[in-house]
């Protein structure tokens, strides 16, 4: 019932397809992040009508399954590309359709509202005192944003971002429905070719599990590293570094730093 040699044989083609999965995940995640920043800005726009419109757009994008996005994109790919090529007076041949790029767009589009929500919630989590302190130091608005607010937002957003990244990794398996040969598509192909469905799917599931665990551990590590200044006693601990002389107390007592006195 379970053919072990076929099980081990099916690992190799699936591992070979792993780069495609990773390319899909990373590029669509970056695109979704960029789109999410724009959507977050539009959703907090001072003009009420624009804000309302983009809130509806966000809810609309959130409510549509990824599979629908993929199908819509794969159906409209030819007509869109023909029009695009006609703009530059070129003739489009549908022999090499850019399916991968369209799949990346579809995945990114479906994750844009989640990214926007992540950014907005991180922005709202920053206490008002930080803005006031920046203003008190006569920072300009962009200075306050880039030196104070965004570094803190990044730390708050990392766990959420890791979650979305990992979900996107799983969602890339749907792109096999629009003829992209990533891990799932290769497994299906291999299974149909050799009539060993159970073995190929089990191997595919195990490999997905492995990649998922690696990325989850990675994001947990980044979270720990990025948020280390949030842990109690972190700033005092850093002073007693292994390869550096500990600061002498009486020196700083004799000549107090003018900045510290402030």
């Amino acid at each position, binding site marked *: *019932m379970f053919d072990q040699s076929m099980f081990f044989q099916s690992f190799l083609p699936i591992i070979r397809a792993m780069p495609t999965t990773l390319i899909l995940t990373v590029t669509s995640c970056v695109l979704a992040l960029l789109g999410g920043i724009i959507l977050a800005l539009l959703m907090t726009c001072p003009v009420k009508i624009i804000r309302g419109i983009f809130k509806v757009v966000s*809810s*609309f994008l*959130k*409510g*549509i*399954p*990824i*599979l*629908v*996005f993929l*199908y*819509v994109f794969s*159906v*409209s790919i030819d007509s869109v590309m023909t029009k695009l090529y006609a703009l530059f007076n070129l003739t489009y041949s549908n022999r090499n359709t850019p399916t991968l790029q369209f799949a990346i767009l579809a995945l990114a589009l479906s994750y844009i509202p989640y990214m926007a929500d992540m950014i907005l919630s991180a922005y709202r989590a920053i206490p008002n005192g930080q803005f006031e302190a920046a203003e008190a130091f006569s920072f300009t608005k962009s200075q306050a944003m880039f030196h104070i607010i965004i570094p803190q937002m990044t730390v708050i957003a990392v766990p959420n971002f890791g979650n979305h990244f990992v979900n996107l990794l*799983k*969602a*890339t*398996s*749907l792109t*096999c*429905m629009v003829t992209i040969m990533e891990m*799932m598509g290769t*497994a*299906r192909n291999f299974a149909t070719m050799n009539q060993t*469905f*159970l073995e190929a*799917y*089990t191997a*595919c*599931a195990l490999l*997905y*599990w492995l990649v*998922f*665990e690696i990325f*989850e551990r990675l994001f947990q590590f980044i979270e720990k590293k990025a948020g280390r200044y949030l842990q109690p006693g972190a700033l005092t601990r850093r002073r007693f570094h292994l390869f550096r002389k500990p600061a002498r107390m009486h020196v700083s007592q004799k000549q107090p730093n003018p900045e510290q006195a402030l």
Partner: protein
Amino acid sequence: MIKSLKLMAQYFPALMAALPTTLMLLLISVIIALFLGLLFAWARLGKNKIANGISYIIISFMRGTPMMVQLLLVFILIPMIAYANGVDTSSFSPSIYAIISFSINEACFFAEIFRSAYVSIDNGQIEAAKSLGMGRMQIFRRVILPQGAIAALPNTSNMIIELMKNTSIASVIGVYDILGKAQQLGKNNYGLGQLELYIEAGIIFWILGLIILFISNMIEERISRCDRKGGLAHV
């Protein structure tokens, strides 16, 4: 544009005929997942190390693999097991496999939500209930469930909406839910009006999600009324 809208209106009844399938998939798997999720959460919280380990591995696997792989695995594995035991599965509807796979998958996410909701309950509440002489089931029903439900509801409703979107994956194994129906109608027409059909299916999914969100907000308001200031006065 007008032609597309006309086409959409023409296909609308046929797509709505597939709505009960989607709703049935969603409802049955959510109900099974609620019970299974409680079971997994109980196993994770309990002292039995074997049950804890098994549920940890199941939850990790279900969270770590795509729904599509799980669905296809269930679709292959269950007929094999049934065949080995002398059961003929050829007359089974594919939605059975979809329900099995969705409910196990959803149960694992629910288990994590329930576990964190249980952890968020103050231990003093349970001790107080014990000191009043309540039995274990009584404590669960009167103390843990009402407070845990408030903590778990927003996440649970989010997961239900996610599952509603993910039921569209069932079309891969030949369940005629909304997306499967849209695909079928498009192919019947030699690919004409496919785009409109998919967009229409997307809009139906969106409206379904909004309805679920509305219902969950209503339930949340109802069960968290004792959490509000002076809430106990108007119970």
